[in-house]
């Protein structure tokens, strides 16, 4: 069948099973937009800013495991999308970004809305393509989806010059493609599995530390089986929350800069760290010099380059988290008689002692709304089953510490890049994936204003997201660092001239609420979540000076946490 390049783009997306494309039109992409107009198979969602398109596609991908798809025009369309592409890149989220480009004969002549999309995106994509011929469109799209979703996932950008989308060729979507320079992901070797299990059986102070890789591999069941077979303590990174149930006794909470006392102390004192789908990032390890001085490291990851990058491993397994955990569980089944709970009895006693510190505790107030309290109430009212997106800052940490996740794919935040503005558009993407689920965006008055225009998109597509704005009139995390490290010189961390968020929500056609008393928190949340078909913006006026504890400050190790004032270290 003879089709234009633009029709081939849309047909190829259909062949890939794409339901939604998040985008924004412009000159170089207009042939493709015309092709969208000619069909009903793939729905285009019009956002209000290209950053919103990438975050929405990202949220969709994180909530489903399917690749998110974005369409933007050339020039500013691409540059606006870069923040969202980089966000997906840092968290290994599968995404395919199609960008219009100026006509081939104009490339390199500083044409109107020309930018070197392949060049500007190169450091923040897994791979990218500039299509040269209409005959290459279908194959390139097939390759892009393959690269984005296989191995360690990531965003892939395809730049398509406008004239090519008008050219005509025979459309045939390839069933298979060959990429000789992109080998299949490696799998764990039997001998490594035996060695790894042997190490677990001999450990006296073990801890299982898992990250986003377990989420991406959809390996939560296999992880739970592994941890329960061994009876080991388990901690999740910010990116890995939900992989292990928050209320299970074997779970010691999140680790890292704002992790729990017991998780960080256990990492420091461990004799065996079993890292699965995690990359020992600086927010997890604290100072590398003081990191887990007595631990052997067993590191499982699909990306060979994260092995021995920050922390040297003693046993390394390169493979998919799910496949590797299946093999580890099989070997543990074979060796089940050798599992000796006595060996880790003292270790658990020590962990219970640390747990007794209750490092997340905060003081409830009758007069000031504590942000932690709002998150706890949100958990209660949504039965802990909501999809929760967040922006970046204190509210993100409060959400991670206090919501309590029981499943993967439900906690959706920008962990690697730390992108303010992520939460609301990501929540839109989640809502497209799960129309009937509760979707809450926990945000702050700083972050929400970075992509607030997407409230219009929510109106256009009836996306009843619940926005939980923890409004402390400060860029809270910046203020906290200034309090600790800059002698309370609050340089530019104060938010003056905030909008009236209630009126703003109403102006966009939504419901707005302001909540100023702790006693009203629960009622407001109940009322908001009862409005199933409305976006509700809840503006919680919170305690201005609340800080996130515990905290591992710069240059400190896991055992040097700063606890809430008045609390005692063990």
């Amino acid at each position: 069948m003879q089709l234009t390049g633009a029709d081939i783009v849309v047909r190829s997306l259909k062949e890939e099973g794409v339901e939604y494309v998040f985008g924004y039109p412009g000159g170089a992409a207009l042939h493709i937009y015309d092709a969208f107009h000619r069909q009903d198979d793939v729905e285009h969602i019009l956002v209000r800013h290209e950053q919103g398109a990438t975050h929405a596609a990202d949220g969709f991908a994180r909530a489903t495991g399917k690749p998110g798809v974005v369409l933007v025009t050339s020039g500013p369309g691409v540059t606006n999308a870069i923040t969202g592409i980089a966000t997906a890149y840092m968290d290994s989220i599968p995404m395919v970004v199609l960008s219009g480009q100026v006509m081939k004969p104009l490339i390199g002549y500083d044409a109107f809305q020309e930018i070197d999309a392949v060049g500007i995106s190169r450091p923040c994509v897994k791979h990218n393509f500039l299509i040269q011929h209409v005959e290459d469109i279908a194959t390139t799209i097939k390759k892009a989806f393959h690269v984005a979703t296989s191995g360690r996932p990531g965003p892939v950008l395809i730049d398509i010059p406008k004239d090519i989308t008008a050219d005509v060729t025979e459309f045939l979507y390839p069933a298979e493609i060959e990429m000789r320079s992109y080998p299949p992901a490696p799998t764990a070797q039997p001998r490594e599995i035996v060695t790894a299990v042997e190490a677990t059986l001999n450990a006296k102070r073990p801890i299982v530390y898992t990250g986003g890789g377990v989420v991406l591999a959809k390996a939560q069941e296999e992880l739970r089986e592994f941890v329960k077979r061994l009876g080991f303590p388990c901690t999740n990174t910010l990116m890995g929350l939900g992989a292990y149930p928050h209320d299970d006794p074997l779970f010691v909470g999140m680790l890292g800069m704002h992790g729990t006392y017991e998780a960080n102390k256990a990492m420091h004192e461990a004799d065996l760290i079993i890292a699965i789908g995690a990359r020992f990032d600086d927010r997890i390890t604290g100072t590398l010099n003081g990191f887990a001085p007595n631990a052997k490291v067993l590191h499982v990851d699909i990306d060979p380059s994260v092995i021995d990058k920050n922390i040297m491993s003693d046993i390394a397994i390169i493979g998919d988290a799910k496949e590797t955990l299946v093999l580890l569980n099989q070997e543990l089944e074979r060796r089940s008689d050798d599992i000796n709970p006595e060996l880790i009895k003292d270790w658990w006693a020590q962990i219970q002692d640390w747990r007794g510190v209750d490092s997340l505790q905060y003081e409830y107030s009758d007069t000031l709304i504590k942000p932690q309290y709002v998150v706890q109430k949100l958990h209660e009212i949504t039965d802990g089953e909501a999809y929760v997106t967040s922006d970046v800052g204190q509210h993100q940490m409060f959400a991670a510490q206090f919501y309590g996740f029981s499943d993967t794919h439900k906690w959706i935040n920008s962990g690697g890049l730390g992108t303010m503005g992520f939460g609301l558009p990501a929540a839109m993407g989640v809502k497209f994936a799960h129309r009937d689920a509760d979707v809450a965006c926990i945000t702050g008055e700083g972050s929400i204003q970075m992509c607030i225009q997407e409230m219009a998109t929510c109106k256009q597509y009836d996306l009843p997201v619940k926005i939980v704005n923890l409004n402390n009139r400060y860029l809270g995390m910046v203020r906290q660092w200034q309090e600790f490290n800059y002698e309370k010189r609050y340089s530019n961390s104060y938010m003056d001239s905030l909008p009236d968020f209630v009126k703003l929500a109403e102006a966009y056609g939504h419901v707005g609420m302001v909540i100023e008393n702790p006693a009203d928190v629960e009622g407001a949340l109940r009322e908001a979540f009862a409005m199933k078909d409305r976006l509700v913006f809840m503006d919680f006026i919170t305690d201005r000076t609340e800080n996130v504890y515990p905290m591992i400050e710069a240059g400190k190790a896991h055992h040097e946490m700063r606890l809430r004032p008045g609390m005692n270290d063990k």
Partner: protein
Amino acid sequence: MRHIISVLLENESGSLSRVSGLFSARGYNIESLTVAPTNDETLSRMTIVTNGDDRKIDQIEKQLFKLVDVAALQDITVNQHLEREVVLVKVSIGSENGDQQSAKEELDRVADAFNASLIDVSDQVFILELAGSSQKVDELLKALANLQIIEVARSGATGLTSSEKPLTVPPTSAG
């Protein structure tokens, strides 16, 4: 320690910038980088000379292999290998008669000693060519220090292992 890494790269536009961008973004050192087509027109061969301890080199290799355009790579310095770099040196021997003659003699002596060729000759300006290891090239430049070097063009090192087994692209991935 100095390492020479050979890379087979898809002959696509932009693949060179993926490699050079990786080195600058991650702060890896590049002593030299050369790239040219191979006998397979779909592949380019790149030779990167870099420095680092074993852990750094391990990271460089892993990060390079992660690039989708990189089809194969090998640190040739871990095996028996040959290294060659071409250098062109433009030398002036001055204008005064007596000095000119002794300078020309000096130039001939160095060229002979290094087995270098005089490939361009005029009254006062000569171009000397040498193919050898980067170390030999360094030594040649040192030996010419008494003469007036006008400019130097070095190709950067390329190399091959002595092994019968070539650097090849691993089996294909299908999607």
